[in-house]
């Protein structure tokens, strides 16, 4: 499987409740002894398109190979798309929706 570069959506109680309701809580991963994250995968092509769309975001190439510093409302939208579609692989749809 090709390497993916996730957007980690950090899960608070409200988000976890929504995931449970949608039966998607199994998609979360434990992190840092006490956190849960929902890793939404991207290809490198999707990373580049996303960074063009949100230039303030950052691809952490050195430490985590993740996309960080996306605005909260963008991550909320990605999270809502995951919950609504019932799948994690939604970034192509998200990018197309935003013309990227």
């Amino acid at each position, binding site marked *: 499987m090709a390497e993916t570069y996730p957007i980690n959506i950090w899960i608070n109680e409200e988000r976890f409740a929504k995931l449970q309701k949608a039966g998607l809580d199994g998609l979360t991963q434990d992190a840092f002894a006490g956190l849960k994250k929902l890793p939404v995968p991207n290809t490198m092509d999707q990373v580049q398109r996303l960074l063009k769309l949100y230039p303030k975001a950052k691809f952490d190439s050195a*430490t985590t190979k993740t996309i960080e510093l996306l605005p*909260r409302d963008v991550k909320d939208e990605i999270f809502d798309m995951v919950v609504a579609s019932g799948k994690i692989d939604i970034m192509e749809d998200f990018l197309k929706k935003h013309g990227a």
Partner: protein
Amino acid sequence: MEYIGHGGKKLVERVITDKNEALNKIKGLTSVPVRRQLATEAISLSYGFFSPLEGFMTKADVDAVCKNMTLADGTVWSIPIVFDISDKEIADYGIKVGSSILLTYEGNPLAVFEIEDIFTYDRAAWSQAVYGTTDEKHPGVKRTLDYKDKFLGGKITLVNPPKFNPPFDQYWLTPKQHRDKFAEKGWKRIVAHQTRNVPHSGHEWLMKHAWMATHGDLSMEETEQGKAITGVLVNAIIGEKRVGDYIDQAIILAQDALRKYGYFRDDVHMTSFTLWDMRYAGPKEAVHHAIIRTNLGLTHHMFGRDHAGVGTYYGAYDAHRIFNTIPKDKLGITPIFVVEWLYCPHCGEVTCTALCNHKKEWQGFSGTVIRSIIMDGVKPPRLIFRPEVFDIVMECADKYGFGSPFVTPEYLEKGQQAFRIDPL
């Protein structure tokens, strides 16, 4: 106490504190307003943060920095400290070599500038020499290319010391005051932690590692008795901010929170700051940081992975390797090289890549990851981010950041600066 700075030369301090003397000194001088960056560099020059420089560089110094990584007199120096000005301003203010001008900031007198040189310099050659690239996307290169037409070189004398706004007033020390404080604490060795970030526990462990490496072969008796002879100085860089950075107040108070809430003992940890706009020059900036901290009286300086780097312009350990090219007698500070710390669920603790062998289980984290977690409205767990630090950051958001711990356009427009220059 004798104050010897970088290059084995007497620490510079060109500051007039007597009001009448200052008023006499500036009488009849043409006032030239300066932007924040130049004001902060004039302040740093005057107090000796950039010793042995006594003022903004002349062409001979810039040339030597670019070609040899030294000043014209052979002292190691890696980043030009320059005063840029337009041709129009030179004409309008009648600036000539041999004249003096009064630099003003926000309408008030700041410093007297004795003009010794007016010059131009090849900015592409400068960028290549200092930043290793001429790519305009590099923030240091961009700054270099954006400088105005000419540069003025010459000595600077501060005539109106800055006043620091809370909370910075608790943490401002001049180089001489740093040294006096270290003497008062009885510190024999002091290691610098360079930062422009709120600390996560990876930073905390870097500092602990650096403290142990610095203490090295010294006796532990004094430390056991509660009177440590080795200290960690967190010397935060306070300067130009970009949207999304932590606000400066959060940085300085959160760093001090590690001591205040007992993650470091009072006798081993101290926080202060230096006014400086990061150039992101990677290895060259590492040398610059070493020079500044030498002037503050530190004996050791911690350098982590990709120190002062940006993007992919520098290798992860370029800022370590550059110190192998500098003769030990040319730099009066010992570098302490540290590796990355991360969370290992197998060990159940924050550990370091040089020691832990559960590589497949490692969970790396960075300041950026912590920022992302906070931006998501989630409180990071205590193992990677101390709860007291989180609380301080959030208090700063309310008190100084218009509701955000991160720099926003509103903070840039209305946020209180670290310092002000009052009327003389």
